């Protein structure tokens, strides 16, 4: 939702966009974002745990243990997050 608003502001031109960025930095909004961030991380953690129950990865005769699947998902998550951060913040500056 946040992104949709950002994109909309972007499409309205510089003043609208910069006003939106300022709005994002209001303390009340930051507080809400903090709560949302905790909620999404919790969602990610529980989602990965559930996925490890469902995902059966077979290597020849053996099955990958659940903990390893979770670990793999978390690693993938960190890698993707880093990539997103790179593109959002540093790429083509």
């Amino acid at each position, binding site marked *: 939702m946040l992104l949709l608003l950002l994109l909309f502001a972007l499409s309205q031109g510089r003043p609208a966009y910069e006003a939106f960025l300022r709005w994002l930095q209001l303390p009340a909004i930051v507080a809400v974002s903090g709560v949302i961030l905790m909620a999404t991380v919790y969602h990610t953690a529980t989602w990965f745990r*559930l996925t490890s*129950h*469902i995902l059966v990865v077979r290597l020849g005769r053996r*099955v990958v243990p659940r903990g390893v699947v979770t670990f793999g998902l978390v690693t993938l998550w960190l890698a993707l997050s880093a990539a997103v951060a790179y593109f959002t913040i540093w790429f083509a500056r």
Partner: protein
Amino acid sequence: MAEETMTLRVARYRPEHGPDQYFDEFEVPVREDMVVLDALNHIKDDLDGSLTYRWSCRMGVCGSCGMMVNGVPRLTCSTFLREFDSEPIVVEPLENFPVIRDLVIDMSDFLEKLKEVKPWVIREKEGLVEEGEYLQTPEEVDTYKQFSMCINCMLCYSACPVYGQDPEFLGPAVIALARRYDLDSRDQGRSQRDEVLGVDWGIWDCTFVGECSVVCPKDVDPAAAIQRTKVSTTTREMLSLVWPFETRPRSTPGEAPR
């Protein structure tokens, strides 16, 4: 030596005496390693012979003695009295099922649904006895073994909030058992079970609460069975849009599977 006792609060329902459920309290002498079922047997033997309940193997393999113990679905033969710090220990009939009498519930809904998914090996054409058995490798057994451990105790139905609200729901054990047969390399009946599983009150009613797997005394993990069925059904439907041919290899009697 003063004998240690514990108090059990047991739900009673005797339709010939009255329409309501009520509770009786019994003080039961305890031995070390005593289980709730032992206490119930003591009550029936020495205190109140009218108490009615199901039990059989008393070792956690028959699935008969499922009841609510302090609000949690348990096998009473595997629930030790020493687990409990406070008394009385409350014993009630398995939740989400109609009560016939005292601690005995009506399981016909479960049995009907179980029949619907055809929990047996289905062959397109039965082999002849002379041709020998359908062979199976240990790896092939491993694919479905976990789901074959179900003892039909129905604790998962008591734990499932969806079944509690929507009695149409097929339920965890039925779906897990259906999957057990779908995964069995000797079985050729998956499409027939798909008809039953793919309805709104089949696999799609499940919201992966996961309580069924938590209470399962045999670690069947029906929640995983259901979610994996959702995944495999979805992938199969998506793939069939581009490749409408059956892909799983079949085994015939006497032949080692490919």
